[in-house]
Each structure stands twice: as structure tokens, then as C-alpha cells.
């Protein structure tokens, strides 16, 4: 590691002296102070019982010199009794969480180190970072990118997926060819691509798999594969205002976890397509989008021995609408990699400037079950002084499947909501949210209110409460409130948030995980330079 830092230091210094490079970076720091609250289930873990606090942060620095085609970066990660990666299990370590160096030589770019990359839509391969969920799936290896011409690019890479400060043992290699074909008359564009990935298991992981398979009944045993091959073919066709995207991905058979802990030998596939139409000729703008995805045993991990969000090499986000309001986002359809048929239709219509209607319908099923259904409508009105959002949502949610809670009925919710943002002056504004969720299952019905006051560009204050006013899981009608203050100074932002947060599925960028309840104070800082 010292040698790596030495090389990067050399690159930074030499190019800073002789080149025209730029140096930039940022710091993101979060500290959590835990206050036990047995009523909401925020207790009984080392954080609440003994540790009382935890922190995690990332200090990122980049150097870029276009003159010499050089780019380099180092990121220092720190986790002190962190609750980030596996909520409830403290994790402490610090060190270089990412380093990379990249050099462009004419049409060729070579990158070594920790690499974030995506092939196509990421169905076959995506190495990425999603800090709120503790995901850092960088590839530790080498990537070569070659621009064949201005429209066609080839990328090949190889290495191992990052696992905190080390790597998962299996090896990955792959490549993609992606292009763009413009046809002038009629105005058509094509954006085709082909992607390929090969993952090879290591002996230790295979030993675990073999041990497991040899313990099964004879009929369930199979010879597992070291190598998994996956690939996809995709294309985006655009004809005037219509864009049609289609992708078919296929993987060879390998040992995958069937969701009950049993290994099965299955191949997999994904069909994904979307059709969108967007025009300004209808009213002040009209858009219609439909998406369909059929998933069959698409489990893409470094090995079947990894669980939760560990060791993913693909990106299979929820296909349904990603809601941001507190109660409308309470029940979300986590992508079912073992099998799902998911589709959604979204329409947006702006009859005249300042008035927008939005409607969305989505549904997720698997072979035998309805998993999720959402009907969502909202109306937004923008005026000089205020912005008003009104809407409603109906959801059917299969809690048994999504949260692995046996014998739970389908959760059915009706959630009307309103949001008003009012500007008192150029600097001062206020935002109010009101949401109500009617639910006869799970925790019961909720009311949520938020009032936020902003003094631009420095101060932000917010008070909110999520009230379980018709509780089904607790004796009392509990309040999950939050008191928030944010302060911005130039390019730095500091936040303090006293939070009571209910347990549930938390999603970021369509990727979700279960998080236990939280009670305590969260302090945050983000600074860029």
C-alpha cells in the first residue's frame, strides 16, 4: 500500500509542478449517537447497550490533468463502530478505501486500481458505490477502454470485487462493445451494445459449496461450476419522439442460493424493455413511458456464499416507481432476482406551464404470487410564490415475500398526500408536507407531517412526526419524530438530526435493504474543495 501511495504522490506532485492539472476532493462524515428506545425496537444491540456512538466517513481526493491525459484518485475511508454495513453489528477499520490511476493514450485509456464501471444498464455488470446502503462494489483490477471511433467504444476489464478493505476471492473478467449509429433520413438513432462477463470461483468458496452439496439428499446434488458466463445484447432505437430500449441477458448455470439457503444449479435470464414517447406538441409537454422486465434466476454474485448486499456484480434495481415522500416510500418492491415479472406505465402531462399531472401504474408478480401493485397520481402547480403538490397512492404489498415474514397478509395502503412550498422572500421559504396512510395490516395507519423553514443559502430547519395513530403492532400509538438543522457555509454543509426512525426497507437508487429502527442523534458534514 505504501508503494501505491508513493506512486500516486509522485503523480500528484510531478503533474502539479509541470502540468496544468486540477486537484479536487470532498469529505463526507457521519456520526451517530444512539439513544435506546425499546418502544420502537431501537435497543438490544451493542450500539445501544454499550458503544453509544459510531461514525463513518470518506475523504476523497482527485487529480486530473487533461494535458497529459492523467487522472488519479485516493479515498481514505474510516469506520468507527460503524452501523453502516450490517446494521446492528459494529464495524471498525480505516484505510485506503479506493485508489486508482488512469492514463489516456490517444484513443486508449488504461485504468488501474479500484474501478467503478457499468456495462449497458448494469444488468450484467456494474461496480458502483451507494454509500447510504454501505455498498462499495468497486472492481480492484485493470480496465482498458478503446474508442474505435467517435461512435464505438470497447471496454475490457478484469480483477476482483472489493470487500471493504480487501477483495472477494473470485475473479472477474469481462468486456463490452457499445456504439451509436445515427441515420439522418429519416431521423433515427441506434445505440447497440454487447456485454460479456466471466466469474471464476476460488477454491475456498468452492470447498464451502461442495461441502454443502455433499450434505444434500442425493436427488438434490449436482456438480457446481467454477465459471459463470453471462452476457447481454441491447439496443436503444430512437425514431423522432419515440425511444425503444431492449435488452436480453443470459447467464450459464451455476450454484445459486434459492432463497431458503439451499443451493440449486440454475441458469438465468433477464428480458428488459422500455418504450417512451415524449413531445412538446401536446399541451406544454407530454411523456409516456412503459417498462417491462422478466427476471429468471438472475443471481449475480461473486459467490453463492455471499448474502444480503455483499458481493453483487450486477445492478438490478426495483422497476417500480421510486417514491421520495415518507409514507409513499414506506412499502417498496425490492427486485426479486430469483424471479419476477415487473412492469410499469408512467404518464406525465403539462397542459400549460406550471401545471403538471403525473400518473403511474406498476405491478410485480412471480410464477404464482402477486407481489406488488401501485397506483400513483399527483398534480403539481408551480407559481412564483408557491409550489403545491397533491396526490394519492394505492399499494398492495406482499410482506411475506419482500420482508421474509411468514404468515403476513398482503399489506394494502391508501395514501393521500400534499406538499406546499411557499416563498416569503427571495431567501426565506417554508415547506409543509402532510401525508396520511390508511392501512389495516402491518403497523396499521399513519399520519405524517413535516414543516421545514429555509433561510437561503445557509440555514435549514425542519420538524417532522410520523404518528402510528392506529397501531396494530404496538400497544401505544407511537410517534417517530425528527428535529433537523442544517447549516451551509460556502461549499461545506453541516447537519444535525434527532431521529426516531421506524424499522423497514430502505431504498437508494432502486437498491434496497432492511434497516432496524433507529433512535438518536445523527450529525453530518459534507465539504467539497
Amino acid at each position, binding site marked *: 500500500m505504501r508503494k501505491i501511495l508513493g506512486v500516486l504522490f509522485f503523480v500528484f506532485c510531478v503533474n502539479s509542478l509541470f502540468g496544468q492539472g486540477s486537484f479536487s476532493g470532498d469529505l463526507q462524515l457521519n456520526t451517530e449517537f444512539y439513544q435506546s428506545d425499546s418502544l420502537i425496537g431501537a435497543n438490544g444491540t451493542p450500539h445501544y447497550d454499550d458503544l453509544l456512538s459510531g461514525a463513518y466517513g470518506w475523504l476523497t481526493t482527485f487529480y486530473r490533468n487533461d494535458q497529459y491525459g492523467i487522472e488519479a484518485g485516493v479515498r481514505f475511508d474510516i469506520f468507527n463502530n460503524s452501523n453502516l454495513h450490517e446494521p446492528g453489528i459494529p464495524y471498525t477499520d480505516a484505510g485506503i478505501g479506493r485508489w486508482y490511476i488512469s492514463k489516456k493514450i490517444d484513443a486508449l485509456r488504461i485504468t488501474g486500481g479500484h474501478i467503478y464501471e457499468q456495462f449497458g444498464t448494469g444488468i450484467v455488470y456494474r461496480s458502483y458505490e451507494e454509500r447510504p446502503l454501505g455498498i462499495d462494489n468497486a472492481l480492484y483490477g485493470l480496465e482498458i477502454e*478503446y474508442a474505435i471511433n467517435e461512435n464505438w467504444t470497447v471496454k475490457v476489464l478484469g480483477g476482483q470485487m472489493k470487500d471493504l478493505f480487501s477483495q472477494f476471492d473470485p475473479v472477474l473478467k469481462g468486456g463490452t*462493445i457499445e456504439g451509436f449509429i445515427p441515420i439522418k433520413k429519416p431521423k433515427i438513432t441506434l445505440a447497440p451494445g454487447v456485454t460479456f462477463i466471466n466469474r471464476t470461483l476460488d*477454491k475456498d468458496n468452492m470447498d464451502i459449496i*461442495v461441502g454443502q452439496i*455433499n*450434505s444434500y439428499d442425493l436427488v438434490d446434488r449436482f456438480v*457446481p461450476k467454477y465459471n459463470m458466463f453471462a452476457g447481454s445484447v441491447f439496443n436503444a432505437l430512437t425514431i423522432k419522439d419515440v425511444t425503444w430500449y431492449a435488452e436480453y441477458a443470459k447467464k*450459464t448455470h451455476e450454484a445459486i442460493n434459492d432463497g431458503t439457503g439451499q443451493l440449486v444449479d440454475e441458469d438465468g435470464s433477464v428480458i428488459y424493455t422500455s418504450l417512451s414517447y415524449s413531445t412538446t406538441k401536446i399541451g406544454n409537454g407530454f411523456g409516456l413511458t412503459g417498462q417491462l422486465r422478466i427476471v429468471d434466476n438472475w443471481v449475480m454474485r461473486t459467490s453463492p456464499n455471499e448474502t444480503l448486499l455483499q458481493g453483487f456484480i450486477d445492478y438490478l434495481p426495483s422497476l417500480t416507481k421510486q417514491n421520495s415522500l415518507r409514507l409513499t416510500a414506506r412499502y417498496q418492491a425490492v427486485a426479486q432476482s430469483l424471479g419476477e415479472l415487473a412492469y410499469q406505465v408512467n404518464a406525465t402531462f403539462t397542459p400549460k406551464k406550471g401545471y403538471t399531472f403525473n400518473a403511474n401504474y406498476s405491478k410485480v408478480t412471480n410464477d404464482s404470487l402477486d407481489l406488488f401493485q401501485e397506483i400513483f397520481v399527483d398534480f403539481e402547480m408551480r407559481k412564483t410564490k408557491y409550489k403545491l403538490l397533491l396526490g394519492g397512492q394505492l399499494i398492495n404489498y406482499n410482506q411475506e415475500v419482500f420482508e421474509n415474514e411468514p404468515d403476513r397478509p398482503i399489506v394494502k395502503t391508501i395514501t393521500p398526500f400534499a406538499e406546499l412550498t411557499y416563498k416569503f422572500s427571495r431567501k426565506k421559504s417554508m415547506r409543509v408536507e402532510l401525508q396520511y396512510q390508511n392501512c389495516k395490516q402491518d403497523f396499521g395507519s399513519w399520519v405524517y407531517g413535516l414543516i421545514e423553514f429555509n433561510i437561503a443559502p445557509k440555514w435549514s430547519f425542519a420538524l417532522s412526526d410520523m404518528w402510528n395513530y392506529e397501531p396494530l403492532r404496538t400497544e401505544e400509538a407511537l410517534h417517530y419524530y425528527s428535529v433537523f438543522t442544517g447549516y451551509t457555509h460556502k461549499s461545506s454543509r453541516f447537519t444535525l438530526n434527532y431521529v426516531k426512525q421506524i424499522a423497514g426497507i430502505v431504498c437508494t437508487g432502486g437498491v434496497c435493504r432492511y434497516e432496524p429502527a433507529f433512535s438518536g442523534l445523527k450529525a453530518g458534514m459534507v465539504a467539497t474543495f
Partner: protein
Amino acid sequence: MSMKPFSNKNLMPILAAGSLFFIISACEEVGPAINFTETTYTTYIETPETPQDKVVLIEDFTGAACPNCPDGHIAVADVIANYPNKIIAIAEYNFPSDPLYIEQNMVTSESLDLNGYLGPVSAWPAIFIDRKDFGADGDLEELPANVAASAAEQVTLTAPVNLYIENTFDNVSRTLTVSVKVKYTSTVILPNNLSIVLTESNIIAAQIDDNAGGEVEDYVHNHVLRKTLTFFSGDALPEENVAGRVYEFEYTYALPANWNADNMYAIAFVHNFEADNKEILQSTEREIVD
């Protein structure tokens, strides 16, 4: 008519497609060994017995073409002599250059599989004492020089499982029946397997021996692994292995004509069966012909 020069821009997709074809065409792999044989057993609970003293199993990865391997044979013979009835040995011939001569038949598929399972090792001889990681370095194998000390450590232990073995051999049909009883004297949480191995000693065959300055034509090969009656990595002891748990197994095998039953042993051992813990808990052996 002049031909259009072939540009390297055209070459790239062809190379990429060619590489892809090559990678996909190399898809076939042998894969790891999986036990597809049905194992039957009888199991019940009885009052736990008094634990037996530990009998140590030493496995010697060796080879007739391996010049240093006689050092391993000597180290194993020494500890057997020093701890009578407390040490059992198996010589597993899996040196890459073996067999030394094509007529030698000491390399078995099980020996090769065991190298993949316990190693793979990069140097021979490699000696495993109860498949225990004495150096806590992740490697189970030891050098011949370390065998005595490691064996001395192991023989002082008592076993959490008692083992009994009985052999019946029909001289005419050359059918061997091995009966094994596994009796837990204390509860074991980790998954366990039972392995049963046939060995043959006093095989006279050539050996490259650095100590003798080259090839020895009439070298005496002892404890040579001939056959595992269970799967090479053992058959599962799948019940809850509490104190008092008893398993009864019976295996039948017809010995090939060129194996000398008078020089053969049946060895049974119970071992942990996890990727990072393969330690042998107890071993026992019995001559095939008493």
C-alpha cells in the same frame, strides 16, 4: 484495382469477437468432485461411552518419482515406532510426475482428489497430521521435520468420538465387508464426515531416492492408499451428533487380484467437514485378514 487497407479500427471488433469466442469455447470444466453415491446407515442414541485415547492419522502426500519423498516415509515410520498403536499412516501418491513407471499403480483418483481437497500443495512430501493447521497459517501440510512434534501434541488428546472397525474377507470372491461403528462420547456441533480407506504395505516398486543417490528398484512402499470406500472427502454423519449418538455403517468391496490382502488395512476416521476446519477427530484401523 487497389484494395482498401485494413485499418486497425476494423481489427478491434474482430479481435474482441474472436476473444469472446475463444473464452466461450473454453467453457467446459471438470468441476469439483460430488458424492453421487447413496449412503445407508443405522443410527440410534445410547449411553455415552468413556472416550478413547486419540489415535493420530498421518497422511503423506508422496510419489515414487519424488526424490525427497523418502524423507517423509522415514519421518512417518519414526513416529509409528515411537507411539505404538497411537499412529495410523496413509501414503497418498499424487506427486505430479507419478507414476514413475507405467506399470506402477499407486496413484489413485482419490489421492489426486485429496490434493485438491486438502491442498493443493506446491511441494512434496507434504504431510498432514490429523488435518490440523498447526501453524495457524491456513496450510494444513507440514514438512517431515515437523511430524514428530505435531504428532506428539496430538497423541495426548482424547477423542470426542469412539470408532470401531470389523472386517470380513472372502478369500474366494475376494469380497471385503467393512463394518464401522461411530459412537459420540461428547457433543460435536461442526458437521462431521466418516472416511474409510484401504491401504496396502510392502509393495516392492521403484522409487527415486535422493538419500540413496538415485533410483531404488526394490523400494518398499508402505501404507499406500488403494481405495476409499466412502467418498474421498467422506460420507456425511448428518444427524445431530450429541453425546451417545451411534452410527453403524457397512461397506462392501471386491479387491482386485493384484492387491495382496494379507498386507492390507481398512482405516476409518471421523473428521470435521467445513471449508476451514477439516480436523480429524478419531481414527482406527484393522487388518483385512486377521
